[in-house]
Every structure is written in structure tokens, then in C-alpha cells.
């Protein structure tokens, strides 16, 4: 390589302000940068152009049904647990036009959605989120059929990951083997130290984004500090989930009284499924003009908590909240493994935090396990 750039697998150190040069390099390479920002009383993902837009110095207190922004009292760039946004919102948007159809004589003409899919650079992807993306890859790319829209966005996406050093009260990625250390594919992975970032190079493309950045190879001291921070995070998980034989536990307890108990509390409002970074259910709808001659077919997010979800002529197969919560949890933690060879849960805790009534799946599983 003509330029002096680090290679995949190598770890370098940059000063914190130098991250702006990485942003600039990504911007010059044509990426739309999506990063954590402070908005609407939360840290969400949105388009940015500068590191100044990151929620520097902010964190959030999380709990079941509870999220509050707080100032940290320091200048951390990534010192907060995952918020309500997911990268799935970019790879698998909540609404997507599939094609349009118009009447053409006696027949129809189909016009596929050939919009150029956006090139995103995702900034600050946590290990649990990398795991979630890998899970959705299995659904949309690695099965017998491929979703070309997801695939195009996914292939183009640049991933700047962050080793999590700030797990929240509802986090349990360590139980799920999904974090806090980034082990799945990324282009660059940061670990934030007080005055510097340690960056692991994940791909040659990632290395190229350091072209205008002053970097040096990480020394033992920096690597040790970074490693310690991640280890500390692993020990600070707010929650744990005993994952031993979850399929057996759930399949054997489909009539457990705990389902009635949780049905009393669950709102069936769909929040857990929509904040979940792996939930992938969708519906398709036709939108036509008044004459019916022109139609757009769109895909929209759906949820197994919607009564219509299980509709077959004659009625809803899961006609109550008990049946729907049972379907969701059993799918997430048991049948997902049968279907895709992996759990559907990465332990990010979003479903606990963003449940308006604070239902905690780790508690539900513990209750079923104890009384099983």
C-alpha cells in the first residue's frame, strides 16, 4: 500500500478530536453519516456531519419502562447505553415501496422500486447491535430468498463500531454472548479512553478512512486500558438471563400460568417488537388511486402483538394478549434458534426500557424457570 495505513486486525490510537477527520473521510467517500444525537429527550440515531453533534457528556439512566437523560460530568463521546433507535430502521425501513403497478390495456405494467439505495456510515454501533445486524442478515440475505433492498443497503453500509463501556440497567448482552466487545464484522471499532480512541481496524476500507488522521499503533498501556474498560462493562450488566435450554424451557411451558400473569400487564402495544433490533415482521399493503388504475405496493413494519397478525378467514388464531406475548417470547428465545440457528435476542434491553409498563423478559423467563 502506497499510504502508510494500518491493516485489518491492527489497533491504533487517535486523539479524540481526530474523529472529525474520520467523519470527513466518510463524507468524502459518499457516505451519509448516521450517529447518536441528543434529540427529544433521548439519544437517538440521526444524520450528522460533525462530531460536535454527538451527545458528548451525556448518558441515560435506564430501567423497566424508564429512560432519562443525564449529564455525565465528563466529555465522553460514547458514554451512554443504547437508546430507542436501531440500525434496523436504516437497513430495513419502517416503510418501503416495493413496486408500482398500472393498468396497461387488458393487463398490468409493473415498475420495480429502482431507487438507488442509500450508502450509510453507521457511527457508534454497539456489539449487541452488530449481533442484531448479523441476525437480520440471516433472515433477509442468508436464507433461500434474498431481500434486494436490505441486501443493497447492507452491502453498502460502513460500520464504525464502538466497544461498549457503558451498559445500562436493562442490558444483558453478556448473557446472550453478544457483547460488550465487538467481535462480528465491522470496518472500524473504537474503544473510548479518557483522552483518546483505540481503534481496531476491521477492513481495508476502514483503514482508508484514517488517511487524513494522525494515528499511532496502540501500545500495551492503551490496549490494556481499553481491554479493562470492556471487561468492566461486562461485569456491570444491569441484568442477566440464564440461557440454558431456553427452547426446552419454553416449549415445555406453553401452558404455564405465568403467561396469564404477564397478559394482565402487557398492553399488546407493539413497542417491544419495534424497538427490538432483530424483530423483522412486516406487512404489505396496496395503495391505489381512486380509479384503481395505479397502485403502489408498500412494505410496512408489523408486529405479532397486532391482533390482525394471525388472521386467517374465520378469526385471529392468537386472539388474546396471552397468546401473543407467548408467541413473541417463544419466538425470540426458542423457535428463532430452530429457524435461524441463533437466538433472536442480543440482550440490548430495549424491550425492557421501552415497554411503557416495564415488562422485563429476563424476569418472565426467571419466573417460568423457577416455577417450571
Amino acid at each position, binding site marked *: 500500500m502506497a499510504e502508510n495505513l494500518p491493516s485489518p486486525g491492527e489497533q491504533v490510537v487517535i486523539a479524540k478530536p481526530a474523529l472529525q477527520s474520520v467523519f470527513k473521510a466518510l463524507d468524502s467517500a459518499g457516505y451519509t453519516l448516521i450517529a447518536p444525537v441528543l434529540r427529544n429527550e433521548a439519544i437517538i440515531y440521526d444524520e450528522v456531519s460533525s462530531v460536535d453533534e454527538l451527545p458528548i457528556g451525556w448518558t441515560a439512566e435506564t430501567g423497566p419502562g424508564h429512560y432519562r437523560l443525564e449529564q455525565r460530568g465528563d466529555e465522553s463521546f460514547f458514554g451512554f447505553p443504547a437508546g430507542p433507535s436501531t440500525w434496523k430502521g436504516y437497513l430495513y425501513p419502517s416503510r418501503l415501496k416495493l413496486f408500482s403497478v398500472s393498468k396497461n390495456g387488458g393487463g398490468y405494467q409493473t415498475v420495480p422500486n429502482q431507487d438507488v439505495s442509500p450508502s450509510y456510515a453507521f457511527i457508534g454501533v454497539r456489539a449487541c447491535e452488530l449481533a442484531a445486524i448479523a441476525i437480520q442478515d440471516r433472515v433477509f440475505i442468508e436464507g433461500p430468498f434474498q431481500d434486494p433492498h436490505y441486501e443493497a443497503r447492507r452491502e453498502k453500509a460502513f460500520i464504525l463500531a464502538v466497544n461498549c463501556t457503558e451498559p445500562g440497567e436493562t442490558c444483558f448482552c453478556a448473557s446472550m454472548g453478544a457483547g460488550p466487545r465487538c467481535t462480528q464484522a465491522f470496518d472500524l471499532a473504537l474503544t473510548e479512553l479518557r483522552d483518546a480512541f483505540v481503534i481496531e481496524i476491521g477492513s481495508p476500507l476502514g483503514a482508508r478512512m484514517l488517511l487524513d488522521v494522525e494515528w499511532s499503533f496502540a501500545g500495551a498501556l492503551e490496549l490494556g486500558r481499553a481491554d479493562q474498560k470492556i471487561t468492566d462493562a461486562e461485569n456491570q450488566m444491569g441484568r442477566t438471563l440464564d440461557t440454558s435450554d431456553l427452547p426446552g424451557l419454553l416449549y415445555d411451558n406453553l401452558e404455564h400460568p405465568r403467561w396469564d400473569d404477564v397478559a394482565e400487564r402487557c398492553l399488546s402495544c407493539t413497542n417491544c417488537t419495534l424497538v427490538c433490533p432483530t424483530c423483522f415482521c412486516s406487512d404489505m399493503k396496496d395503495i*391505489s388511486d381512486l380509479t384503481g388504475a395505479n397502485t403502489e405496493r408498500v412494505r410496512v413494519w408489523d408486529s405479532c402483538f397486532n391482533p390482525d397478525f394471525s388472521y386467517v378467514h374465520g378469526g385471529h388464531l392468537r386472539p388474546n394478549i396471552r397468546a401473543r406475548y407467548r408467541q413473541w417470547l417463544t419466538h425470540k428465545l426458542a423457535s428463532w434458534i430452530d429457524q435461524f440457528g441463533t437466538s433472536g435476542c442480543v440482550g440490548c434491553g430495549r424491550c425492557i426500557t421501552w415497554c411503557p409498563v416495564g415488562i422485563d423478559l429476563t424476569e418472565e423467563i426467571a419466573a417460568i424457570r423457577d416455577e417450571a
Partner: protein
Amino acid sequence: MSTAAKPRLAVYKFASCDGCQLSLLDCEDELLAVAGAVEIAYFVEARRQTLAGPYDITLVEGSVTTEEEIERIKEVRRQSRFLVAIGACATAGGIQSLRNWIDVNDYVNTVYATPEYIDTLATSKPISDYVEVDFELRGCPISKYQLLELVTSLLIGRLPHLPSHSVCQECKARGTVCVTVAQGIPCLGPVTLGGCWAICPAFNRGCYGCFGPVEDGNPIALGEQFMALGQTGAQVSRAFRGFNGYAPVFRQASEYFEDK
């Protein structure tokens, strides 16, 4: 729907504020297409000329609050192939159904200088309490997009695609942060039917349930969460007793929390 002549559309008003029928006029861009696709036979707010029935599609706004309205809605039903109740008043009785919990004469005597001129029913009730309704559009006011979808579907000959999900699904789809979880603001979104594109939470306030209860939701559990957030039972009761307060599920919840 007959192809020979244009389908005939009628719009009738009962006890209501006119806001829902204005949604039809609010269709602006699409209004000409609607006017081209149907014959607007009876719509006193839009057209001076009125044509007698029968009508293919009749939109009915407002609740039934007088004896005269009971007879009138029966006649409208007789004249209509598809009768569509539009808005919170027509589908749940509207805000005026607050009278259903008290003696209406108390209101009449308090509000009117000459109460003896007032002839009213003791209750404000939805259209479906009096006649068979083919479709309902919820909302206070209704969504013009749903109105267009309904007219389109009837013209094409299929069932309308109307939302069956909660407001929460729309907040998440448009990226609005949950106001209850992030700010402790009581929000009826989790138990309220979507269709409004979750407009209130997007402006940082809680949903007040104007599209009425979502099918098979859990308002009691939500109300208990409001109380955990510091609301009194009376406040929770009032939250449910709004524009759709007389819709059965919200009615039960409002009564459940009244004395909590």
C-alpha cells in the same frame, strides 16, 4: 358499485362540530378526483343543490342526541347502500357523551336560559346504537387519508385497509421517542387505535385517545402505570373519558379508575 352512473355520495351531520366532514373538503389535491369519481348528491356544506336518495355511499358525522335524530338516521340508513360513520361522535358518541354519566337536565338547566325549549335525549350515543353501520372511520377529526382510502376501496370493490395497530406503532415507524418512557408523560397511545400518524407525541404531548380504543388492548394496565407515574385515579379516569370516553373499553376503564 354500478358502473353505468357515477356512485352517489351523501354526507349527513348529526350532533357534531363539522370537523369530520370538513376533512373531505380538506382533501384539496384529491378533491377533484373524488368529485370526478362520484356524484356528490347531498353535502350541504359543499353544495347548495341537494339530490334525494338513494345513495351509494353515505358518510354520517355526529352522534344521536335527540328523538328527531333517531328518526332521521333510520331514514338515512334506508337511503344508503354503504353507511359509513365518521369520527368520534358518530362511532363512540363524542365528547358530548359526557352527559351519559350524569343527569342531562342538570346540564340543560345550568347552560340554557330557557331550558324548557330544549328537547334532548338523556344520552349521546354512536350511530351504530340505532342503525346498522357498514364501516367506521375513527378520529377526532378523521384522517383524510383514511377517508380517501375508504372511498377508493368502495369504488374498487374491496374492503378498506384501515389500521388496526396502536398509536405506538406509528411513533416507532416515524422515529418519535416515547414520551411516557423518556419523560413520564401519560399517553394513551398504547391502547389507542393508530391512523393519526401519531401526531401528538411527535409534538411532545401524550396521545389523548381521539381514535378510540385499539382492538384487544389493555387500558387497565396502562391506567395503573399512569398511577405509578403519580396520577390520581380521578385523573386517569378523566384521561379515558375524552372524545371516545363512551367507547365501551374506554368507558369501562374510566369507571374502573373513577374511585381509585
